[in-house]
């Protein structure tokens, strides 16, 4: 038996002071100050968001008109009027094409990681590399496409931009989809397998549908991010003043590229176009983000 301590001597218990005053001022203040700072931190984040949104709304709102959304881009920064129609079309085409490439590949890759590879060394390597790829700067992705596609075919095009965006979206979709597949309970897989379904059927007809809203939400967020990407677009897509419906033939443009080009100009009409484009882009990105959140929330409720 180990040695035991003498009974603790304590001041006679009477009615101990339990009030807040009994807590030392230093402890009370430290606690208050730091908890207060947390709240301050939230406001520090809210303020710039509010200011950005207000700037874009107030300066871009006046610019937006039917003409602005549809007309061709003036070929001089100095000339007022015109619009960014070609850039809107370009954004939708390029982002859409990128999504078409990245979604199937990303979902398939996620299926490999969660349904086949699991904790095997190869799967862990892919998982780790996907995380690293998520952190690769978009400009590097642009340089990659530039040094392959653009230099190879000696032409900038919408498709080159779509390739760069697809490379940026791929790891994001893989990882978010894998997270969602992991939430699908194993009982569902076993139930399907016990009915005699093959594994690929189980995966396609049972596992994917069970996780579909979560997957969709992750994909929409990836698309929203890609739509706002600027760096790769600027130098692999090129520039056009009138709408180019072809992704392969000739140069194209997109909203982020328009904002970038116009933002660095001192001419009032160019800056106006930049604000208008920013508002348009934010609306497009927000629509995707909000839809993604609604779908995700539905999913969360169903989970419970």
């Amino acid at each position, binding site marked *: 038996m180990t040695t035991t301590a003498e009974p603790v001597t304590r001041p006679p218990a009477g009615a101990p002071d339990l009030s807040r005053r009994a807590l030392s001022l230093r402890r009370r203040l430290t606690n208050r100050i730091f908890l207060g700072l947390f709240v301050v931190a939230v406001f520090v984040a809210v303020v710039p968001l509010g200011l950005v949104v207000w700037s874009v709304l107030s300066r871009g709102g006046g610019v937006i008109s039917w003409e602005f959304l549809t007309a061709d881009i003036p070929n001089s920064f100095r000339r007022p009027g015109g619009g960014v129609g070609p850039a809107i079309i370009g954004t939708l085409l390029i982002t859409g094409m990128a999504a078409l490439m990245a979604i199937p590949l990303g979902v398939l890759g996620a299926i490999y990681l969660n349904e086949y590879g699991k904790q095997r060394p190869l*799967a862990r390597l892919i998982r780790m590399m996907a995380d690293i790829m998520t*952190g690769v700067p978009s400009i590097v992705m642009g340089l990659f496409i530039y040094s392959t596609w653009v230099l190879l075919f000696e032409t900038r095009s919408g498709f080159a931009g779509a390739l760069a965006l697809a490379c940026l979206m791929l790891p994001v979709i893989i990882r978010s989809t894998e997270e969602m597949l992991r939430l699908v309970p194993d009982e569902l897989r076993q139930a399907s397998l016990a009915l005699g379904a093959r594994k690929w059927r189980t995966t396609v007809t049972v596992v994917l549908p069970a996780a579909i809203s979560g997957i969709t939400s992750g994909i929409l967020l990836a698309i929203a991010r890609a739509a706002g990407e600027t760096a790769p677009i600027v130098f692999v897509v090129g520039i056009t003043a009138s709408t180019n419906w072809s992704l392969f033939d000739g140069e194209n443009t997109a909203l982020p590229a328009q904002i*970038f080009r116009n933002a660095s100009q001192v001419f009032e009409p160019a800056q106006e176009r930049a604000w208008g484009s920013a508002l348009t882009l934010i609306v497009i990105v927000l629509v995707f983000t909000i839809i993604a959140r609604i779908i995700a929330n539905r999913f969360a409720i169903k989970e419970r």
Partner: protein
Amino acid sequence: MTTQTQTGPDPKTALSSRGGGPRADRSFQVLTLAAGLLVLAVLALILITTTREAWPAFDEMGLRFITENRWDPPSEIYGGLAFIYGTAIVSLIALIFAVPVSLGIALFLTELAPRRLRAPAVTVIDLLAAVPSVVFGLWGVLVVAPKLVPIYNGIHDLLGGIPVIGRVFGEPVGSGRNFMTAGLILAIMITPIITSIAREVFDTVPRGDKDAALALGATRWEMITGAVFPHSFGGLVGAVILGLGRAMGETIAIALIIGSSTQITANVFASGNAMPAVIVSQIGESTGTFTAALIGLGVVLFVMTVIINTVAQAIVRRAEIRMRGAAS
């Protein structure tokens, strides 16, 4: 094994392959594997193709490409040290501002916020993450930079005379486009990512540890320093490094705000340049070795971010393993 019933499968074909057979299973698996391997292929291709295109510049400059401070395309001299310095200083400024704010928000969300305040606060962070970086750049260059100039002047007048510190807060550039403005805008942009990782990290702290601290009479802040921080230290380091990786790669906002001048100076109010910003603003007019040099900057950036992300992940993973060890 099967009990034959009227509706059951014909025993002769019951065990044979249907629905595409094992071959379909195999093909599907190979297909998914190919998609997974694509990640490895793309990463390898990025390194190979960009290095190949950058080779003329690497070949010409050697190590001076990253050690020399002279960027002179007409004379075919490409020493990018100033851009590496610019990237480092802007990222550092961004971290100094973003880390405390992000940790504060994350702690507010995990430890302090009443449930009904939690959702709106998360929404704000999500929206902050959703704003495209080019919009922050536009806002930064046209709205923020001019407004900050008087503040910079004030700080310079106040602290500029003090030795050492005075050199950091030197003469502000008139446009407000400088390291400091770029760092501040960058801080806003990396706050959501650090916040969301820090939140995940704080969420892994076991309820029991927090309860134990509170049951000893700890205040909420003492509980956070005593029970939450020791548990989440590794994860937080990882979160900060991931934020650093993001900051280093950010291009467009920096390109608009940093002011485009090739110099190495301690003065945070001076204009400078950063690797991604140089690439995006100069590649349009470049040819030959100049293009190679710009792609070379991309290779340097790529290698740096890969190293940083790998280290961050290793730290996060080790912290996770330690925590799991604690649980068992």
